[in-house]
């Protein structure tokens, strides 16, 4: 199977965010692979190990996202595609998906995998849009993939503890639900091997994708608080004692 996995690079989980215009200040924070995408990558690697083939990691963004592609290569992906664009954060979901679709269309892969959503924009649309643009069947919130010849049996997560089995022909696009698998770490051997693997850089403008934005982020800001939080301070013991008093005599829930 030829499998493409879309991996996004996002600010590290504990990175302090400083809003700058319609994005954040990037200069003083670390970045990491979007966690939901790491589950998609792991699933791609497992399918390759089971059925043979190739895993291609694709990421869009400025030069820094090559680091995330390298991480995918170190974990076992065979090669990388970097869709280069310093202002990719300003793309809307459709513009972003159109660019990725144009970059990967000629690969004629069997399967495209994405994570459920990104931890930065959180659009949660890329996989479904890729399927629409490339005219492939798709399914989302996938918790299990069984490949049988030219089709797949898939376990989809629904809400409130429900699941559903569906059948989906190949080629297809799947958005993977977080928690589907245990993500592997890169080994030292993998990191060394990754150095010899190829990353193709494609400037996004060269793809000839016309981007008519359907939506625009006008401003980003820290949310207005809906509840007034009373912070309890002091040593752990003092704060704990204050909290018990508050819960007993003020909130009256104990």
């Amino acid at each position, binding site marked *: 199977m030829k499998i493409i996995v879309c991996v996004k690079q996002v600010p590290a989980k504990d990175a302090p965010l400083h809003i700058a215009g319609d994005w954040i200040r990037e200069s003083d924070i670390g970045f990491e692979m979007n966690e939901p995408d790491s589950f998609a990558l792991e699933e791609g690697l497992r399918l390759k190990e089971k059925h043979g083939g190739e895993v291609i990691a694709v990421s869009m963004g400025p030069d820094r996202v090559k680091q995330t592609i390298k991480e995918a290569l170190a974990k076992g992906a065979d090669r990388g595609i970097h869709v280069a664009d310093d202002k990719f954060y300003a793309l809307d979901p459709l513009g972003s998906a159109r660019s990725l679709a144009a970059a990967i269309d000629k690969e004629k892969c069997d399967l495209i995998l994405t994570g459920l959503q990104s931890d930065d924009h959180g659009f949660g649309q890329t996989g479904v*849009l890729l399927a629409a643009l490339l005219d492939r*069947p798709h399914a989302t919130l996938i918790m299990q993939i069984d490949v049988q010849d030219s089709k797949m049996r898939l376990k989809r997560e629904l809400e409130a*503890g429900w699941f559903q089995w569906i059948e989906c022909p190949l080629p297809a696009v799947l958005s993977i639900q977080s928690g589907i698998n245990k993500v592997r770490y890169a080994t030292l051997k993998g990191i060394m091997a990754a150095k010899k693997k190829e990353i193709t850089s494609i400037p996004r403008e060269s793809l000839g994708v016309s981007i008519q*934005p359907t939506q625009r982020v006008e*401003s980003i800001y820290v949310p207005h608080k809906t509840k007034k939080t009373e*912070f309890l301070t002091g040593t752990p013991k003092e704060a704990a004692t204050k909290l018990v008093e508050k819960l007993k005599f003020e*909130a009256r829930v104990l």
Partner: protein
Amino acid sequence: MKLLLIAEQRQGKWNNTSFETLAAAQQIAAETKGSLAAVVVGRGVAPLADELASKKLDEVLLVEHDLLESYTPDGFTVALGQVISSSKPDLVLLPHTYQVRDFAPKLAASLNKGMIADCIAYRNDSGRLVFVRQMFQGKTVADVTFQGDAPWFASFQAGAFRADLVAPHPSGKAPVNKVTVDLAPQQIRTKPMELFREAKQAVDLTQAPIIVAIGRGIKAPENIPQAEKLAKAIGGELAASRPICDEGWLPMDRQIGSSGQTVAPKLYLALGISGAIQHVVGMKGARTVVAINKDQNAPIFEVADYGIVGDIFEIMPALTEALEKA
């Protein structure tokens, strides 16, 4: 403004988030002096269309077809694409459910349009609608507007509006109009099969008056007994955010959030939980929320009544001791 609400049902039962979004749609229709239609899609769903017609709406569209009995993204995209092309709404509103995530971006793209998904609110800036959605896992929010021509697509997050505020129809019932769609079996490429639930719900967290929930901050399974001790001392049930259950540190039936249980206890203690929206939608109905987290900017504090900024491994034992003494 002409609005269309896509209501969601599965096997003849409503997804209740549909009514939350209906409340939003009624409000927008009133503010823009526009009209509101709602569409129900399925097979044998006329009783649901009838029920919807008792709400304040101008029209209910009933779309029935054998191939729409079970949900498929292909079937729903084709059918709803035809409904939108014929009814020509300006704004299509959907509840941000798992099913909507699965087809709505494709539906919008099939008409060459975009969707602002997972909104938590909207603002009417003198006739121009601004949609508010979260970014960076709830650490920031963004004002987003549509560009280009209608139709525009937007979905509202569960809990963003109140279903109990849906207005009834002022004079009895709105008309229910059947819409015929052309749909052929070969247009549907995926084949839906049986629905099932995994393990029986061993613990019904929805009935627990007090819940002590742990998140990534617990760091390792060896630390869970500390939280269990605290839960025992306070008389509560232990629960967790999704990553803890994904790791297998606690069983899935103890998960709170969009993919787990939705609870509204009188007291909710969030320990080392950052407050990603997927978790918050499952617990924001709690009467009193206590958040303990080392990061004072963690979004969980947005919904907390009481907060302690600090190390949960220092505060858990101190709190257990204080409770045992009290």
